[in-house]
């Protein structure tokens, strides 16, 4: 199967300034997160995938189609929800979505039917005849999602979909994205600076920094591989001996703040043995959490590298 997105030495320049620098990645996940601080190149990458910016060198492919040579075909597969307000304020919601669906190639009658459906789906059924200019911020975000899905794309590109939403609206938006993802009919790319949004919706994450790929991780695999990752809170004077003993049993250890100890247990070692060693060393285990490397840890690690290069 073709990767959803394939970046092959992609470089994008605005004048003499390189914005994306030799990006290489193969993304195959159902939902792909694009993470990075402001100015990392997330929006430029999305705009390049949409054909708005021409690559200076290298290429990007979506479902195996080159974005430079097959721009029209690529765009027919994509539904795009931009970050900023993008609509025609004087148009009613349903008319605007219908127009967008028709431009995507749907016949007028199908476009109208799907515009209504999309509005009900995103929870704006009752206000679909109101002008978009009168919508609240949350409604505008939902309307943007409606126009992105109305024509039934194969790849949904969401640029900061929860921007400016209050907590209930954010939860609703995340639920919608999860619902769309779980139906399995399409792939999605979610660009956000909010780690929580990406963590809740994505199974693969590409982290950008200064136009470079700072990290790429498969969150699903990460979650599976970190099942034996423990964080302990201990009391006692013999913490050092306790750690030494754990290392002898094959654990990877690290001391955190306030007596917290991080352990990665080797295969075959039971948690019960950990308590036995602690008891023998006269160390109290006050708290034990099964923890995984959070996306925040991965992101912060990626940001440590000064030029963001892997």
């Amino acid at each position, binding site marked *: 199967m073709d990767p959803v997105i394939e970046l092959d030495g992609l470089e994008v320049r605005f004048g003499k300034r390189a914005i994306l620098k030799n990006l290489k990645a193969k993304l195959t996940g159902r939902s792909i997160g694009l993470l990075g601080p402001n100015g990392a190149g997330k929006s430029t990458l999305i705009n390049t995938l949409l054909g708005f910016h021409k690559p200076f060198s290298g290429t990007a492919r979506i479902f195996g189609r080159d974005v430079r040579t097959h721009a*029209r075909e690529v765009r027919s597969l994509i539904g*795009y929800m931009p970050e900023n307000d993008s609509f025609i304020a004087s148009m009613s919601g349903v008319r605007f979505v219908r127009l967008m669906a028709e431009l995507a190639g749907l016949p007028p009658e199908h476009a109208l039917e799907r515009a209504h459906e999309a509005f009900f789906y995103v929870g704006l059924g009752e206000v679909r005849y109101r002008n978009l200019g009168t919508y609240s911020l949350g409604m505008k975000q939902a309307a943007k999602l409606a126009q992105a*899905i109305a024509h039934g794309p194969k790849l949904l590109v969401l640029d900061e979909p929860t921007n400016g939403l209050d907590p209930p609206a954010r939860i609703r938006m995340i639920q919608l994205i999860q619902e769309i993802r779980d139906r399995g009919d399409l792939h999605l790319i979610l660009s956000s600076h909010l780690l929580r949004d990406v963590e809740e919706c994505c199974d693969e994450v590409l982290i950008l920094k200064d136009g470079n790929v700072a990290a790429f991780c498969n969150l699903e695999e990460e979650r599976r591989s970190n099942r034996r990752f423990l964080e302990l809170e201990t009391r006692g004077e013999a913490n050092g001996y306790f750690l030494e003993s754990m290392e002898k049993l094959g654990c990877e250890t690290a001391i955190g703040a306030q007596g917290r100890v991080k352990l990665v247990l080797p295969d075959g070692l039971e948690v019960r043995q950990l308590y036995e060693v602690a008891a023998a060393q006269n160390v109290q285990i006050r708290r034990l959490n099964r923890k995984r490397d959070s996306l925040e840890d991965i992101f912060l690690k990626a940001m440590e590298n000064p030029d963001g290069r892997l």
Partner: protein
Amino acid sequence: MAVYKKTYRPYDGALTSPLSRFLVIPRYAFEDMQKSRFLTIFFLASFIYPLICALIIYVQHNASALNLLGVQNANRLISINVTFFMSLLGWQSMLALFLAAFTGPGQVSPDLANNALSLYLARPFSRVEYVLGKMTILLALMSAMTWVPGLLLFGLEGYMEGWQWMRDNARLASGMFFGAWVWILLLALLALALSAWVKWKPAAGALMFGVFFVAGGFGATINAVQRTKWGHLFNISELIGSIWVQLFEGRTHITNGAVFFRVIEGEELPLWCCWAALAVLCLICLYMLARKIRGAEVVR
């Protein structure tokens, strides 16, 4: 599927032809235009002059109607000739300028003001198709005001006079058709270019008139100060007038243009200069559009 089911589903139905997809834009624009009572009335009112012309042609060829009116020799007063058709084109073209100034600014500026271009261009829809779609509504309306009634009147006169008259005056029909197209293409491009750069609609509309009248005044000032005729290069109506004279009459002309589009006797510019000046203006408009019609703004 009923709307109450509220689930997402992919679309697997038929798609429209990519070649005709740009026509979606004028269809929506025309629906929007119909909502404006002023524009509708103005558009309908623009047919008064062609109707009067049709009436003149009919009456002139109808002896009983002339007898009824008691003006048996009236047909000698108005001749259906090159002046008649050029006057029609001149009047209708001026009305087309007003229409372009009223409707043109509303074409691109709302999309730019609301950042909607990224949504248009994120679809299998190119920048060229977008401009073509936006131009189509202007071209269709202005065609309906200029060359379409012109050719209908030519047909009516030909029907009254006979086949020989049509053959002898075929140049009038081609002049009407191509002369109107030069004008409406220029107007449509200019309206869209100004609409793309000036987001406030009234200002963009006013700028349309400014380009024609203020630039003309600027050209006249250059002529007066420098004692030259090259200032006419800034006067679009004179450039168009020169081209119309050539299209309607060829090298041996008896008129000096139409109403509003007259060339001053003795100050005619070489024809190639007129064409070149209009081509440069069109290229500037295309450049302005190319700079603004983009899916994403590039900050260098």
